[in-house]
């Protein structure tokens, strides 16, 4: 039957084909069992014919139908030869669909797939970057081991391509090749190393992805690119951001010392021992102060912070986990607002975010306390969300908010979702144990619930009360009496067992009730659940020891019943208890201690969060969600006790000038200006620093903005010099430079807007470079100012001098990252208006120059 219906489906497919295919000549007549097979064959014949026809439309129709088959999961591999022929089709859509087909089936038809390779090899040399890229994409997706050398060659070539888009595809191809043939690892690492140096935002995300997949342990490859990645991060596309942030989190944990204060004392002691000489300078600094954050560490935290504003939940979560794992504890609290925002999103996002918040809220309650109400449960939430919210509410409960929370819990207990109501009762129990003030109130509340109509609720309450009473074995006779009465009505075994255990433990406090309960239980023994039977035996034994006069016979009766029970556990227990409590000749020393054994002081159970043990997984990972180590999970290492040499991240300035200049600019600006555009980027970041730290920085920014908005360029430069001297009066060099700069910009008066923005860039570069040298050491800047006085006004020489201080130890980026204390007060004077800088930062760096163009040309309009 099933084969029949299948065949009919095929037929109807064939019918469609005749309608669709304009070129189809053969019509299919379904007739009987014989016809079925032939039609199946015919149908593919028909497709083959269409593929071989001269008309594109027929080919296209055939390809569309084949794609439809693939989508449904039907096997279309036998059409391979016919399809491959069309790989060189002129029609783009046919070509694309053939690619789709090829990638899917090449693995199964390796020999035939080779026919297509030459087409791609040709396309790899195409002048159009997009064609090159797509050829590489398909070529590397064909999983045919024979072509590994060809792929390797193609990847190497593409990695050196002029187009960043092609390089991006090369980075993707690395992973594909690696999964096809892991033996290529070494060669691929070379390519990764090369691509990591790439300064394009397009490439960054993809190459880091390749890095994570091929050689995540080669952390040494990151050193030189660390600062660049931090600075590019804002402009990388969102998916790349996630990958880079996760990688940098791991990196930072191996390279920096812990910013968490608790560990400080220990660390300092050890540092004194293991200190190495070459880092002496830094260490002395550290000895004075308990902890100084590495400027690179600070750079990472500062540059990721704006991404909390991303619309992409994955990016926000990635930044949140970075702050959680890397930032000083006082700074981590800014992530809570953004995480709470994500709770507005889809249920799947909520689920993951709530899980992470649950883990966080165990360790640092304060972070989410202000958002307590955001975790209130709505009746429309799915159950999994409800329980997670409850979990968080429990973690956040403290003396101050518990009364509101308990009121909220009261509504939950009444919920129609009984599973949720039961979870709420457990929650109340946990709150009661955590906060001793409310234990009594909770107990009373739970006792009230004992009269609830719903059995699940009652049972859960009994279990929780048992745990609570165990923790506070004081005078709770009343509650126990009440619970003893419940034995008549409750049928849930766990609850009955709990009550019996409780009475047994406290049998001396309720001397009248306990024997009576035993009497009643003896009657119903045979019909009880195994769980309850065991507890009846326990109760009997305990009573026998404390009150043997009243209960001796009853206990023996129960032991006799237990002796012939069907369950071997119960028979076992019976035998054990009889030997233990009933004295006879054979019983050895144990029976003397029977009372101590049975009525020993038992430690109260700890009511713990199920999220307690999750914190050893990095937040935001799949492993954390599942609470097991997922394949390929990369452990987050502990902070090193001594930071590895920070100098490994320094990049030679010559390299800097070449490598860091955004691609778009290289084309337009001459070599001497490359340097400035680089430092301008940096200036922007230091500007943001000064903005946050002091008001004066932003004021001067406004000032220069006024100058900027007016058309007069001389006014522009004068405002520059004004603000420059303001901040660094003591430094003569600045004044000179500014004067010179003035002269230059005067001479350029009347040039295009574009030029103007460049001069302002260059002046800003100067001011920042001055700051570098001065912060390095006072004496050095003085010595630097000597040759300065002799200096001819040539741009190139200046740049060389600027490099001097930098190559020593600290690279360009370090300076604005230093603590205000270590830096001489000089704030960089933003020669660019803050808005312009904002534009530069906000936009893709590679394009900033062209954007400046359009922006500055529009500026006057806005002013008028």
């Amino acid at each position: 039957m099933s084969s029949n219906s299948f065949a009919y489906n095929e037929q109807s497919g064939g019918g469609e084909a005749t309608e669709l295919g304009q070129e189809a000549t053969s019509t299919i007549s379904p007739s009987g069992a014989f016809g079925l097979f032939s039609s199946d064959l015919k149908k593919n014949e028909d497709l083959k014919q269409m593929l071989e026809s001269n008309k594109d439309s027929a080919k296209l129709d055939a390809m569309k139908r084949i794609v439809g088959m693939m989508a449904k999961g039907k096997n279309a591999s036998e059409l391979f030869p016919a399809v491959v022929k069309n790989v060189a089709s002129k029609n783009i859509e046919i070509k694309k669909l053939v690619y789709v087909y090829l990638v899917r089936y090449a693995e199964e038809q390796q020999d035939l797939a080779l026919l297509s390779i030459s087409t791609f090899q040709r396309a790899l040399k195409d002048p159009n970057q997009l064609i090159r890229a797509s050829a590489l994409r398909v070529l590397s997706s064909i999983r045919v081991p024979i072509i590994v050398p060809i792929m390797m060659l193609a990847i190497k070539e593409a990695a050196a391509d002029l187009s960043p888009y092609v390089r991006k595809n090369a980075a993707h191809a690395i992973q594909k090749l690696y999964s096809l043939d892991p033996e290529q690892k070494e060669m691929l690492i070379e390519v990764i190393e090369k691509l990591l140096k790439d300064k394009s935002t397009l490439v960054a995300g993809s190459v880091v992805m390749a890095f994570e997949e091929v050689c995540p342990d080669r952390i040494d490859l990151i050193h030189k690119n660390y600062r660049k990645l931090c600075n590019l991060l804002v402009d990388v596309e969102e998916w790349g951001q996630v990958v880079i942030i996760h990688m940098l989190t791991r990196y930072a944990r191996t390279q920096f010392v812990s910013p968490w204060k608790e560990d400080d004392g220990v660390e300092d002691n050890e540092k004194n021992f293991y200190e190495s000489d070459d880092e002496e300078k830094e260490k002395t600094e550290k000895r004075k102060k308990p902890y100084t954050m590495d400027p690179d560490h600070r750079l990472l935290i500062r540059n990721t912070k704006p991404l909390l504003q991303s619309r992409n939940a994955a990016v926000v979560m990635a930044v949140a986990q970075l702050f959680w794992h890397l930032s000083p504890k006082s700074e981590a609290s800014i992530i809570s607002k953004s995480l709470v925002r994500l709770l507005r999103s889809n249920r799947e996002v909520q689920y993951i975010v709530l899980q992470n918040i649950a883990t966080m809220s165990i360790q640092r309650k304060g972070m989410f306390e202000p958002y307590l109400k955001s975790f209130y449960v709505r009746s429309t939430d799915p159950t999994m969300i409800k329980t997670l919210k409850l979990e968080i509410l429990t973690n956040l409960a403290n003396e101050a908010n518990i009364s509101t929370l308990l009121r909220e819990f009261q509504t939950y207990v009444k919920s129609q979702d009984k599973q949720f109501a039961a979870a709420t009762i457990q929650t109340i129990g946990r709150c009661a144990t955590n906060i001793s003030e409310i234990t009594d109130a909770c107990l009373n509340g739970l006792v009230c619930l004992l009269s609830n109509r719903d059995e699940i609720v009652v049972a859960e309450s009994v279990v929780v009360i048992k745990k609570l009473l165990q923790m506070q074995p004081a005078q709770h006779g009343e509650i126990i009496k009440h619970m003893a009465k419940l034995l008549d009505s409750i049928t849930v075994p766990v609850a009955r067992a709990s009550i019996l255990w409780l009475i047994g433990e406290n049998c001396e406090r309720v001397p009248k009730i306990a024997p009576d309960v035993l009497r009643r239980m003896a009657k119903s023994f045979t019909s009880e659940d195994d769980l309850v039977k065991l507890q009846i035996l326990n109760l009997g034994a305990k009573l026998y020891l404390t009150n043997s006069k009243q209960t001796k016979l009853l206990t023996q009766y129960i032991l006799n019943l237990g002796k012939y029970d069907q369950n071997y556990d119960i028979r076992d227990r019976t035998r054990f208890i009889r030997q233990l409590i009933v004295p006879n000749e054979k019983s050895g020393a144990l029976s003397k201690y029977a009372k101590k054994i049975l009525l020993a002081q038992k430690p109260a159970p700890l009511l713990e969060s199920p999220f307690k043990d999750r914190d050893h997984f990095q937040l935001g990972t799949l492993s954390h969600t599942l609470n097991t180590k997922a394949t390929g999970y990369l452990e987050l290492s502990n902070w090193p006790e001594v930071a590895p040499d920070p100098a490994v991240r320094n990049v030679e300035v010559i390299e800097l000038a070449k490598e860091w200049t955004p691609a778009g600019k290289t084309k337009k600006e001459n070599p001497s200006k490359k340097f400035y555009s680089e430092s301008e980027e940096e200036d922007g970041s230091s500007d943001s620093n000064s903005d946050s730290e002091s008001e004066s920085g932003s004021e001067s920014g406004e000032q220069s903005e006024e100058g900027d908005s007016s058309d007069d360029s001389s006014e522009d430069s004068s405002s520059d010099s004004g603000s420059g001297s303001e901040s660094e009066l003591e430094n003569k060099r600045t004044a000179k430079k500014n004067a010179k700069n003035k002269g230059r910009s005067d001479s350029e008066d009347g040039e295009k807007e574009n030029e103007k923005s460049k001069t302002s860039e260059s002046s800003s570069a100067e001011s920042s470079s001055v700051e570098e040298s001065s912060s390095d050491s006072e004496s050095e800047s003085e010595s630097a100012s000597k040759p300065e006085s002799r200096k001819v006004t040539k741009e190139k020489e200046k740049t060389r001098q600027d490099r001097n201080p930098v190559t020593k130890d600290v690279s360009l980026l370090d300076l604005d990252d230093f603590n205000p204390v270590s830096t001489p007060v000089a704030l960089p004077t933003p020669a660019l208006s803050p808005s312009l800088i904002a534009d530069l930062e906000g936009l893709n760096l590679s394009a900033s120059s062209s954007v400046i163009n359009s922006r500055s040309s529009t500026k006057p309009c806005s002013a008028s």
Partner: protein
Amino acid sequence: MIHSLFLINSSGDIFLEKHWKSVVSRSVCDYFFEAQERATEAENVPPVIPTPHHYLLSVYRHKIFFVAVIQTEVPPLFVIEFLHRVVDTFQDYFGVCSEPVIKDNVVVVYEVLEEMLDNGFPLATESNILKELIKPPTILRTVVNTITGSTNVGDQLPTGQLSVVPWRRTGVKYTNNEAYFDVIEEIDAIIDKSGSTITAEIQGVIDACVKLTGMPDLTLSFMNPRLLDDVSFHPCVRFKRWESERILSFIPPDGNFRLLSYHVSAQNLVAIPVYVKHNISFRDSSSLGRFEITVGPKQTMGKAIEGVIVTSQMPKGVLNMSLTPSQGTHTFDPVTKMLSWDVGKINPQKLPSLKGTMSLQAGASKPDENPTINLQFKIQQLAISGLKVNRLDMYGEKYKPFKGIKYMTKAGKFQVRT
């Protein structure tokens, strides 16, 4: 990263599969079906399901499960966010995202998916770029295609991917240049039995529809930006400018997009525009219960409340309800026990009410809790937080665009406990 994608409909059929790396057998979905069975309700299916060799991450939207197959560690939100982006893209392309539509457009779907991921890593997810690569199907284009034999695939190459502003396509041209912004605020609230507010907050979004020629550079400023407590931006917004001046400065994508979503700071008291008077009682003895709801306006700033819909999940013991509304229509589904009352517009002079009796299961005890009432409503021309756009300016292009701003307030998750 993402190995394969399976689309599963509500009856459990896999109606589309796509693989980006080597093929994963569709039998892997059996684990998903197992979890689905255990969860009973679709929305309780866990988003992350581990299987011996793979991990299944799924989202559930438009009655379709989008199940991604993962083999190694990856941030789960990365995949989930991407799957949502896929659904958004389909919606953008086809207007609706449903099983028949996807089946009808399977070729376009396949082409789009092919462009969105390369080797499981997102490649092009901006709808502006995707639309340049693969044209969305329209009736006109289908007709033209069948006659001329031309194709859906754009014959131009996707320059957007390489451009400065990757979210905007190049060479945009309109005869009428217009930019519309909708400020939409949603009130999330829980109101308790006595009518006092337990929690209330306002979440807002600014959705934009921008059809402007060329490369316009827009700035949007607010009268009272301080109201915005927490914001998230479309990638086009320049973050630094917002930090320093509280101005939204951006080169917009072409077409519809969400510019900004925000949260209004918790210090501000939230005006609750409606109240619900309710009297729902079950009696122990009789098998009849009383039911009465009245909805009325509270703090509406003089605006009319429209589109009011009251829904409530009645307890299991309720067999049927016989109710008479003073206006609108109501339905009660005896299987799911869902009561829904479409009220429409509230007339302050004559408050809408719904009265009647409930018949309860004979012999069953009365439910311990009264049902929660969920409310939906709309108020046009009002942003309940008081947020106001100050002005919108355009730079970079010469023409004068037509600008429009609309405000609206809606109920978000608005619950009244009874």
